């Protein structure tokens, strides 16, 4: 069964992925994804109705530790990487009107 992805789905995935693809890129991405999904569909040959999804290979649960600060004040080093900086803040485009 060949997968067919609609333009609307591609648009939606683009929003989730925060990617803006050109018309040409979009067509290529759609074809790539349809091909991959056809391939991924081979997983349906396996009956997994009695199998629990496994997210972690070892039976580890949440790992807790005391919230003790061990690192120093890296403010300057951290802000030095900012594409745009305003005093001690990261500067971003205006978000509210």
């Amino acid at each position, binding site marked *: 069964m060949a997968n067919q992805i609609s333009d609307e789905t591609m648009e*939606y995935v683009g929003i989730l992925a925060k990617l803006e693809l050109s018309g040409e890129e979009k067509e290529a991405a759609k074809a790539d994804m349809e091909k991959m999904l056809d391939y991924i569909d081979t997983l349906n040959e396996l009956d997994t109705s009695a199998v629990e*999804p496994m997210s*972690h290979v070892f039976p580890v649960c949440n790992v807790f530790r005391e919230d003790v600060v061990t690192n120093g004040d890296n403010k300057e080093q951290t802000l030095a*990487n900012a594409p745009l900086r305003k005093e001690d803040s990261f500067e971003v485009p205006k978000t509210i009107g």
Partner: protein
Amino acid sequence: MDLLHLTAIELGRKIKTREVSVTEAVKAVLEQAKEMEPEINSYVTLDEAGALMQAEAVQKRIDSGELTGPLAGVPAAVKDNMCIEGKLTTCSSKILSNFHPAFTAEAVKNLQKAGAVIVGKTNMDEFAMGSTTETSYYGPTKNPHNLMHVPGGSSGGSCAAVAAQECWYALGSDTGGSIRQPSSFCGVVGLKPTYGTVSRYGLIAYGSSLDQIGPVARDVSDCAAVLEAIASHDEKDSTSIQRKDYDFTSALARDVKGMKIGIPRDYMREGLNPEVADAVWKAARVLEEQGAVIEEFDLSLVKYAIPAYYVIASAEASSNLERFDGVKYGYRAADYEGLHNMYKKTRSEGFGAEVKRRIMLGSFVLSSGYYDAYYLKALCVKALIKQAFDRAFESYDLILGPAAPTTAPELGKSLQDPLKMYLGDIYTISVNLAGLPGMSVPIGRDRKGLPVGMQLIGNSFQEKTLIRAAYTYECATEKQFEVSADVRAGAGMAAGQAGDCGRACRQTGDPGDSAFQAKSEMPDVQAKSGREA
């Protein structure tokens, strides 16, 4: 003294006895790297000044008796997806082309504690997504054994740097085979530890449930020593595991008597290059002669590992790479209208094609309506694959097979058909899904002289079994396949193929095409190598 031919441990011994200074070792490797880099491009950043400064500091710590370990003073390289404080860390992506981390990855810190001098950051597939190191924003790395071929990936820079003697050992990371496959293609020893053995703190995440850092080395002893240095329990990584054993070098013993080794029939069938198959069988015979018991068995589910992997890894990648949005670090698009448009433009301009492909796929399989059918289904298949390995390890101490279906492909032949490239990871990917340790060891050459590797797979926490088998093989074959690349001879071959063209380019003085430029320099390089001989 030719330091470059020594193993890391041999060099460490000479540094310890003051036969060689740390600065001498660093200078030797920097000189080699500067000569090789125009050809190989193993490094994104070669940190000459930083390495010389580290050398002085490490020498003082050795002289004061603080550093006594086997790797003290030995120059190493680190894959460019591991953060080092203040050092450019790019993940071979445009989006991190100006990122200087404020902290150092735990594995690198452990190396520094052991006295390593980090000479540079190695090239990789962008965000470790790829099998050839051709998706790097900073240009492909070439295979030191034949410059017309890829080194494999994604840790292609680390493996090429070790093979071309541009460092004594390196760190790589392995999400679906990214240490083992390029190690096999470059004729070096690479090991992916059991999930949780090496801290992922400071490793820029791709598929968090699959990623592990591991060593790339010239021989099995170096590999064990580096693993011993980097493995640790780390509170900063919630998936880090407190192990009972960290003394991996204690497994360096020539003894496989009675060791039960299984060869999956499903690995040795169609799709496997006959030369690779032949080398794997020969390696198995060597271990048999040393006393191991070799049997074939059906592992099952082999063909489902790749589709399950691409669902899980892409899903995790789409989430992990969400953070690259042009706000806190890295590249930001120049023109945009408003916040969301800035995100989209930054990411669309900053990521390469393969990364975007996987983010799109990952976003799709996690989206409502598809989550159960794809993502949860893949997690169920992962459980089945783990069970298949559990069953195998009830009968065998070790699984032996090829690391990859072929030797290194030619440059420029893999990216057009991503699905075909993905299939090249068929023997390595399931090991990540099951969280197991895997190791690649050189076992031969194909007709073109390209290295062939075998993969040893162990049960969880059984790195020592891998090391013991690999060491036994290495002793029995007298390291005949662990030979560093003769880049000068290999490059000469490339020049021979391009012959007149290379010379013509030099005559017309076209410096724009670096490939031709490199070839045009060949006759001089050969002459130099001739003098040394």
